[in-house]
Each structure stands twice: as C-alpha cells, then as structure tokens.
C-alpha cells in the first residue's frame, strides 16, 4: 500500500521544514523517501500538513474515567451521534464513551494519546478500555508515587530494588512510564490527611515527597525508560503552590538524563502555578514557573489549559478531590487502591465571571506564551480536568491570535487585569510552534521522537492535513478559521491509512498500545519480589498470581525494551 501526499504546506519542526511545499511518500505504514508511480495520490492543494498529533497527558481510559461516566450520566446527554456503517454510537462531552475517544481525537488530526494515570491494580481495566478505543495509538503511565513498595525502598535507599519494582510494575500494568501524583499525599489520604510540601514526612513510611521524587527519577534513568518521571506536584490546587512547584522542579538537578530529553515532566502546570495565600488574593505565578523553565533544560511541562464550561476533574490526588468537593458542594467519588495511591472524581463547571476561574484560564495561556521554547510547554487540557480534549482547536486559536485573546478577556472576570500578565502579552505562536506543542515536543518528551511527531523518513505514517493555506491566512485575524480547521482535519492518516476525510471517519483500524519492558539484574528482581510476596500475603485483597495484566489484554502491543543502566547512586 503506497500513498503520496503532494503539494502540502508542510510544518515539520524536527526536520526543519517550515511551510515548504514538500511531498510525503508512504509505504507500509511508514514514511519513505519515494514511492512508485502506482501510489495513491492525495493532493493537499497547498493546505497545512503536519505529523499526526501526539497527546502526552489525557485521561482516556481506566477506572477513574469510568467512575466519571458512572457518576455523570448527565454528561451523556451531549455529544450524541448515532452509529454509522463504520462507526459505533458516541455519547458524552467530558467523559465520552470509549469509541468517541478514538473518533474525536482522529477527527482533530491526533493519532497518539497517552492515558496519564493507571494504578497497577486497576491496569486491567485501563487496557480493556484502551483495546476498545479505535484508530489511535495509545499507552498508559503507571502510578508509583504513593505505592507502599516505592516508599519502603526509598526509605531503605535501595535503588536497585526500586528499579526492579518499577520494571516489574510496568510489566504488571503493561505501562509506558512512571507517573507520580502528589507523592506521599495519596498514602496520607488513607488517614484523612495530606502532605503540604515536598519536605513533609509521610508517617510510618518515614519518607518525604522530595525523596520519593528524586528516587523515582534516579531509577527512571537507571532503567533508561523512554519517558521521564511524569510528576503531578504536591500542593496542587492550593493558592501559593508555585513555591512547591519550583522546589520540585529544582530536584531535577540531582539526576542526569540517560537520554536526550528532560528528567522530569511536570504536568498540568495551570494548577501548579498559583500565587497568593487564599482565594481572595489568589493570583498567577505563571511567569515564575515559565522563567524557571526558560533557564533550565532538564524539566518540561504541559499547560492543562482550562476551558470554560463543563469539566470533570479526575485524579489520583484523593485529598485534593475531597477539598474540591467540599468547596464546590459537588458530587464526589473517592477511590482507595489498597497499597497504591488513591483517587477522586468531582464534576466542575468553569464560569467566565468567577474570578478564580478567569485567572486560571489566563494562567494556562500565560504558561504557553511566557515559555520561550515550545518543546518545554506542551498543549494539553489535562482532559477532562481543565476541559475536554475536543477544545484543543480553541487553545490553538487563542495561542495564535492576540486579537482573539483580547476579545475573550473582555468577556471574563476583570480580575485577570490585576492578577495576570495575559492582557499585556502580545506573543502569537506560529504553525511551527503549534506543531511542536502538539507533535514534535510531545513525542520528544515521551521519548518517541524517532517514530512519532515528525514526517522524516522512518517515521510512522501518521499525518494530518488541515483545511488552511498557511501562506494565505493571517491567524491573528482569521482565528475563527484556525479554530474550525483544527477541529476537523481535512485528512487524518494513521499508519498510512486514511482514517478521516473532511472531518468524517472513513476507517477504524485498531491502534497499538505502547508499553515498556525494562530488564533489571535477576538478583535485584528476586530480592524485590520477596518484599512484594509479603505485601500480597499481608495486605493485598487479591492474589499475586491474579495481579499481572496478561498479554490477552493487549492484543496490539508495541513493546519498547530497555534495561538497567548503571549510574552513580548515593
């Protein structure tokens, strides 16, 4: 199967292509240097061509996504579309059904999406849903930050055992990377408490969040995992938390990267860049956070942009969600995953005229506009915490047009003028920078830049074509066209197959699931398993033999093999 895309205005930042008319040849699902004359030709007609979108942080599958569906039946009243000859029925806006997840991402030109948090014990559920999400490639980050074995090995300062545990946990969950959510806090929530910063001691385990973060970064690099530690900071969602965020980011200096990427990815920074001491003097500190990123190359972040309207907050940060539910008088669901973290789900409605919401909205945009290098600030909405992913086009339009931002600012609470820098920011991102924030940058942060996020020879043939002619449009003025084009791709090509044409799904192949098989020395594994066997005997409600996700649950795996690399460990 050969395909040739002609006359596209290609934006491929990794390969230095900025809107040049470049032909793209595709054979057997990969981009190649040329194809035969028998290739099917798609004439892009001067329209915008980018690699397929890559999302590094979105809650698309698993236990808490499903809890969101169960506790929000009202959400299924929107986004309803009946089945067609090739698509299944869709429902929902903030917590759509599994099929809609795949179709809607593909319709936006996205072809790879990573679920941001799965507990090992709940991983089977995650994979059951991932298996049903059509079209896109996917994977899931596994939670380690408040797991009992993690904290035990951190206290013992035994990095070999911790590395063996992480490797085994990734295998058990068929996971892609190390997620760390409010480290220590998830455990303290079991006692109705939380940690307030990175130096609080977690009782019984006698470790601090700081020690957990540094240790996980060390073993992440020992194992040479494709992605870095993916951190949801302590103190998230509290005014004044930017200090905790900056202190956490500084921990990255203690560890050297094993690959050409960051050693720490701090996620949904919108919720972590807050100044003030309470909701009254709440203000943006996005400038401080962006400034740190501008001066350091070992940390990356993503926006977690907020979208006005309905959202469903869902996170492994159990204590935060209890506080949210109390604050909002909202529905609340709490989850306790035995020895592995907690979780909570709370619906929220973001309102333009509520000052805190308006300030939050502006913080997300400030982060993107004040961070100079787009490789360090990825575009996300922390779906569905900041808002559903279907609104990425709105975020893109806001970043590309100061005019649109100024129009929006007029409609939101006036607090943004006093508490944010956004009204004075006139930076407008170009197509290359957008391509980095949604493709090349995300792929690089995930450690997948060899095959994802670019259009060079050897890359996966994941391509999106949008109905805009970059040389004939002024995104600053014609922001409505930008939004409309990025909402519905003219073409989405996944693995060399046209899956979307003119915004309509044309084919629904099943994508692959990425997971990492990390090898450690056998004796480290054996030592570590002695502790794990004890944990299962004494505390877990299930048997060790029933714990691991079997291969049957991952029918289209894409396994990345890595292994322990000796590095200096204190």
């Amino acid at each position: 199967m050969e395909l040739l895309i002609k006359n596209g205005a290609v934006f491929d930042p990794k390969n230095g292509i900025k809107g040049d008319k470049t032909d793209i040849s595709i054979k057997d699902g990969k981009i190649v240097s040329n194809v035969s004359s028998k290739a099917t030709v798609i004439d892009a007609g001067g329209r915008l061509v980018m690699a397929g979108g890559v999302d590094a942080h979105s809650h698309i599958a698993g236990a808490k996504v499903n809890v969101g569906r169960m506790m929000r039946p009202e959400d299924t009243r929107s986004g309803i579309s009946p089945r067609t000859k090739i698509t299944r029925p869709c429902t929902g806006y903030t917590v759509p059904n599994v099929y809609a997840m795949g179709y809607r991402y593909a319709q936006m030109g996205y072809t790879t999406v990573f679920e941001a948090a799965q507990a090992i014990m709940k991983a089977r559920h995650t994979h059951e849903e991932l298996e049903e999400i059509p079209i896109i490639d996917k994977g899931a980050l596994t939670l380690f930050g408040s797991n009992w074995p993690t904290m035990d090995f951190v206290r013992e300062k035994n990095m070999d055992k911790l590395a063996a545990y992480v490797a085994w946990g990734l295998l058990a969950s068929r996971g892609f990377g190390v997620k760390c959510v409010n480290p220590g806090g998830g455990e303290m929530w079991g006692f109705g408490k939380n940690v307030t910063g990175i130096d609080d001691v977690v009782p019984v385990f006698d470790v601090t969040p700081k020690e957990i973060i540094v240790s996980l970064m060390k073993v992440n690099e020992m194992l040479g995992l494709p992605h870095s530690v993916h951190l949801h900071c302590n103190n998230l969602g509290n005014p004044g938390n930017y200090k905790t965020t900056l202190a956490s980011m500084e921990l990255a200096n203690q560890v050297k990267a094993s690959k050409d990427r960051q050693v720490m990815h701090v996620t949904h920074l919108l919720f972590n860049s807050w100044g003030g001491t309470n909701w009254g003097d709440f203000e943006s500190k996005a400038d401080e956070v962006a400034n740190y990123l501008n001066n350091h190359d070992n940390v990356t972040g993503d926006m977690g942009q907020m979208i006005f309207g309905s959202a469903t907050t869902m996170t492994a940060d159990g204590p935060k969600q209890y506080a949210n539910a109390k604050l909002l008088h909202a529905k609340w669901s709490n989850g306790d995953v035995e020895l592995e973290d907690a979780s909570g789900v709370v619906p929220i409605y973001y309102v333009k005229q509520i000052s805190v919401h308006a300030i939050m909205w502006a913080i997300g945009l400030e982060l993107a506009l004040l961070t100079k290098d787009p490789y360090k600030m990825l575009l996300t909405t922390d779906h569905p915490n900041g808002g559903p992913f279907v609104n990425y086009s709105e975020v893109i339009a806001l970043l590309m047009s100061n005019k649109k931002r100024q129009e929006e600012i007029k409609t939101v609470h006036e607090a943004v003028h006093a508490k944010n820098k956004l009204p004075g920011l006139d930076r407008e991102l170009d197509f290359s920078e957008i391509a980095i924030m949604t493709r090349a940058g995300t792929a690089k942060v995930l450690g997948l830049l060899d095959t994802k996020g670019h259009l060079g020879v050897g890359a996966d043939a994941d391509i999106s074509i949008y109905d805009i002619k970059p040389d004939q449009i002024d995104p600053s003025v014609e922001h409505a066209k930008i939004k409309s084009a990025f909402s519905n791709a003219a073409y989405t090509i996944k693995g060399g197959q046209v899956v979307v044409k003119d915004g309509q799904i044309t084919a629904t192949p099943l994508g692959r699931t990425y997971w990492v098989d990390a090898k450690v020395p056998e004796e480290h594994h054996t030592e570590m398993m002695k502790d794990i066997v004890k944990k299962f005997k004494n505390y877990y409600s299930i048997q060790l033999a029933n714990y691991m996700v079997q291969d049957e649950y991952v029918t289209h795996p894409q396994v990345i093999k890595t292994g322990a690399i000796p590095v200096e460990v204190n």
Partner: protein
Amino acid sequence: MQTVTIRPMKEIKISVEGENISPDKFGGKTEKEIQSLVAWMGNQKTTIGDLFSVKVEGSGPAADTKIVLEGDFSRVKRIGEGMTAGLILINGNVDMHLGAKMSGGKISVKGNVDSWAGREMKGGELIIEGNAAYYLGAGYRGESCGMRGGKITVMGNALDFVGEHMCGGEIIVNGNTGILPGLSNNGGKIVIGGNTSRPGSEMSKGTIIVNGKVEEMIPVFKLEGDEAVDAVTYKKYTGDVVVGGKGILYVK
C-alpha cells in the same frame, strides 16, 4: 386560532417519541406538514401521519395553537417537550416525560401521566387530573437542577421522588405521594394534600408543606416551633442540617 386534533389510527404497542407533538411544532402548519413530522417508534423512524389522524382547523402561531389528543396516548412519550406557548388538551393517559423542559404554555391531562412529567420544566403550567408516577418535576439522571419554574398541579396521587433536585417553581399534589418528595430540593415549593414519607432529604433551600400524615421523618431537621401558613398551623422544621440546608418543612 389554530386547533389541531390528533388521534391514534391503531393501538400503539411500542413506545413513540412524541417530542414533535407541541404547539411550537404544529403552529401555523398545514395537515400535510404536521403529518410529515418525525415520530420514532422504537427503533423505527415513522411520521406523525403514519401513526395518527390529523385534523387542523384554522391557522395561527404557537401561542394561538390548541392541540387536542383524543384516544389512547399511553405509549407516547415526550409530548409537549420544550414547548414555549400554546395549549395541549389530553383526554386520556400519557407515557413518560410529558412537558419535559417546557418553558411556557399549558398542558392539561384528564387521565394519568407516567414518570418524569414536567422534568426540568422552566415555566408554564401542567395540570394532571389523574395520578402522576415517579419523578414528577424532577431533574434528569445526574443533573443538579430539576424543575426551575412554572407550576404543576396533580389532582390525584403521585409516586416517589416528587420534585427531586427542584430549583424553583411549584408542585401541588392534592393526594398522597410516595417516599422522598423534595429530595435535594434546591429552591422549589411542594405542597402535598395527603400523606407522604421522608420528605425533604438533602434539601438545601425551598419549602415543603405536608397537609396529611408524614409516615416517617428523617432525623435531619431542626424543629423551630409552630407557625401559621394561610391560617393553618404547622410544625416548622428547617434542614437538611446534614448538608447545611436552609430549607423549610411544614408538617401538621
């Protein structure tokens, strides 16, 4: 003035989605146009003309349109959904979701209505001469607001969850109601002529008046003493204290 009379041409066994039976949809339309409006029957797409005989007299806008339903509509759902004006007269029983989301106009039913009548109603009037089933004037599954305005009057009895998640408006049930009327009431008024059980659980605002017997009170209310409403003396309670509610419950 436009009068539209519709009548089932045969017995309806599979439920019909009747959201197009509304003055807003019929107003100013000819018989042919009304007959061509969609009416799903189960998973089959049919039209009003396939199922009902339609007779139109005169012509006028929605506000000046009267719809008369003759015969058995007990398997027709969503009649008058979202209507903003006009009048619907129903001579028998109807299925679920009568007058859901209606914001104006009036619906009058001679018979009984099934569950969810006046669901998420915003305005207008609903008069039911028979009985109502569950979730009268309630919110839909998961929503935090049910009925927001307008008035529902039931001459007979109603089943459980009258005015669940109500945020405004008024419901009057002359007979008895099932359990938990005014559940999560957030600002509506409910008057019950007969008996009920466990009223006002989780209510944060609004008023519930029970003129009959309360078979069981949930222990989440604070007794404030006696108070007269329209020259009738009631015991006045406030609550639900568990949710910090400021709702008022009057019990004889």
